């Protein structure tokens, strides 16, 4: 019997581990060295493993339905379904723990940093428990293999398409973007945990066979009261708080490297520093040689943080999908001052500004052996007098540094080609 159980457990654990591995694979993108992102990925694995655990619990209950005549004779017969849900949740917890171990090990193996909100991990087991109890309760009342299929599909769709607070309770990551400058809002996590704990208590009540009188009425009453109190409180607090799980922190881009131009990223993104630094130094040297007066330092903007006026702003978010070709890295240096227009979604610098920065990028990469520059920019780079070219680069870059974006103009010979 125990051997049979061990075999079943091993098979049941397999899909959970495969699902966790797919989450950890991170869509083929490199692993971020960001602790909060790691934690969010671990908790987010329950987006898949939660519904699977629900299906597993339902399958166990459906299979055990054939043994009902036997189990109904035991003293603790009323708790059979709850125990099966507990076993399914336990398997989910094993997969969750293994996911956490692997994720932490990978993060430790790469340059890592940033805030670590470990408390957010508490939500995973609660999601698994709620999903397991949902599957078990449904399978008790609808003991058919189709229930074991419908439960995971339904739980996954509920986690996305249901009205609030369904998605907030069932879906805790994984985010794909950087979490630098953000931390988990522990109050929101606490409200979600309360709601999930209450829901699990009520589902446990639903998983007790109604015709059976063996469980103590006191246990039923306790489950009902605890479920209504914690679930109700958690749901009300969840609904009355904003749906965001993160709040802004005081994290700053304080991991700096490079000379003559220093590049500063938050600790959570420091893994990217090695990736972009050599290329940035090369294009910075070329821009300087072409006449641009670069600031000494470029910093990444973060939620709630803008670099001071004398410091350059890295023009794009630094992420794994940022190309490291010279053009993309030169584009990073096109905001030598954190101008207000860059943070105003309604401000839209004109076409001439856009074309002028493109030309500056072309200047920065023109001496690259494999640089491909076409159209009028190519002619301008080849035919313009070097002194005139140098003067235009210096004038344009200093206008960018002064945040005088209206003064950013294309050379006269190229302005004729501008759309009206």
């Amino acid at each position, binding site marked *: 019997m125990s051997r049979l159980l061990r075999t079943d457990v091993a098979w049941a654990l397999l*899909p959970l581990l495969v699902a966790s591995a*797919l989450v950890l694979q991170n869509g083929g993108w490199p692993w971020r060295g960001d602790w909060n992102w790691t934690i969010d990925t671990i908790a987010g694995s329950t987006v*898949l493993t939660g519904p699977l655990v629900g299906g597993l619990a339902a399958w166990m209950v459906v299979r055990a339905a054939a043994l009902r005549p036997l189990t109904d004779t035991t003293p603790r017969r009323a708790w059979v379904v709850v125990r099966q849900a507990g076993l399914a949740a336990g398997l989910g917890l094993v997969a969750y723990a293994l996911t956490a171990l692997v994720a932490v090990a990978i993060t430790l193996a790469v340059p890592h940093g940033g805030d670590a909100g470990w408390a957010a991990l508490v939500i995973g087991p609660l999601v698994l428990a709620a999903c397991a109890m949902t599957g078990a309760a449904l399978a008790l009342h609808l003991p058919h293999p*189709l229930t074991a*299929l419908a439960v995971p599909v339904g739980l996954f769709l509920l986690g996305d*398409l249901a009205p609030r607070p369904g998605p907030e309770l069932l879906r805790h990551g994984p985010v794909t973007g950087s979490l630098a400058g953000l931390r988990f809002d522990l109050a929101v996590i606490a409200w979600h945990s309360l709601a999930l704990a209450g829901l699990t208590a009520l589902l446990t009540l639903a998983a007790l066979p109604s015709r059976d009188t063996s469980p103590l009425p006191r246990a039923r009453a306790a489950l009902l009261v605890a479920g209504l109190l914690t679930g109700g409180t958690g749901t009300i607090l969840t609904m009355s708080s904003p749906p965001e799980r993160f709040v802004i922190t005081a994290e700053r881009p304080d991991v700096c490297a490079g000379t003559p131009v220093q590049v500063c990223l938050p600790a959570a993104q420091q893994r990217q520093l090695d990736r972009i630094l050599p290329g940035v130094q090369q294009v910075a040297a070329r821009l300087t040689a072409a006449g641009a007066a670069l600031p000494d330092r470029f910093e990444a903007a973060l939620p709630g943080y803008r670099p001071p006026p004398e410091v350059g702003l890295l023009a794009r978010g630094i992420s794994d999908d940022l190309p490291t070709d010279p053009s993309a890295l030169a584009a990073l240096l096109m905001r030598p001052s954190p101008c207000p227009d860059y943070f105003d979604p309604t401000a839209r610098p004109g076409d001439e500004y856009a074309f002028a920065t493109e030309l500056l990028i072309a200047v920065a990469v023109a001496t690259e052996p494999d640089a491909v520059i076409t159209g009028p920019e190519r002619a301008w780079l080849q035919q313009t007098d070097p002194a005139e070219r140098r003067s235009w680069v210096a004038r344009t870059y200093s206008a960018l540094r002064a945040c005088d974006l209206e003064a950013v103009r294309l050379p006269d010979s190229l302005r004729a080609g501008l759309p009206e």
Partner: protein
Amino acid sequence: MTRVTRLRTSGIRGWVAAHDGVPVLIAIAAVSIGTVLYAGRTVRGLDEQRIPLWFLAPALLAMVTALATGDRLPTLAPRRTRPMLARAWWAAAMSTAACGGALAIGVSADQPGLVVVTAPLVGLTWMLAVVVGRASVLLGAGACVLVLVRTRDLADLTPREVLADLGAWGVVIGLGLGVAGVVVHGLAPRPGDRDRLL
């Protein structure tokens, strides 16, 4: 004459009941109608990209159809003509139901190629069922999970492109192998059922 008809009807009803035919057909109808009604709805995958609901339909239909591949019948003389014919009819009926659902979904979602993506997946599910019985549900479930994990890569894929990769022969071979496997080797009995029946 009346007696014979009644017996035959009873035989078919018994076969359908032994293979969970009615619940499976209801589930196929539910998946099809639900997806037709919400053809424009999108689902958020694990990488936060959204994919249309119809994208999951082939995997869901294969998953549901897998439940009709295990039976409660004793495996007596599996290679006799009549059981083989019965299995052939059954596999054809279930495949037709699943492909019919996929066709309806494809028409409503303006993805006419959806049915030819569903057909080989259903066929492979049946083929797998010859070996593992109803555990072949894992094929559809795996496809479902893969779609949800890889939304970023799959979001712009259309059934036409999948068909172009598979080729018409791929579809025919996928479906044909599955049905042929079931017809020749029979369906796997559910765990415990064989002992109880024989």
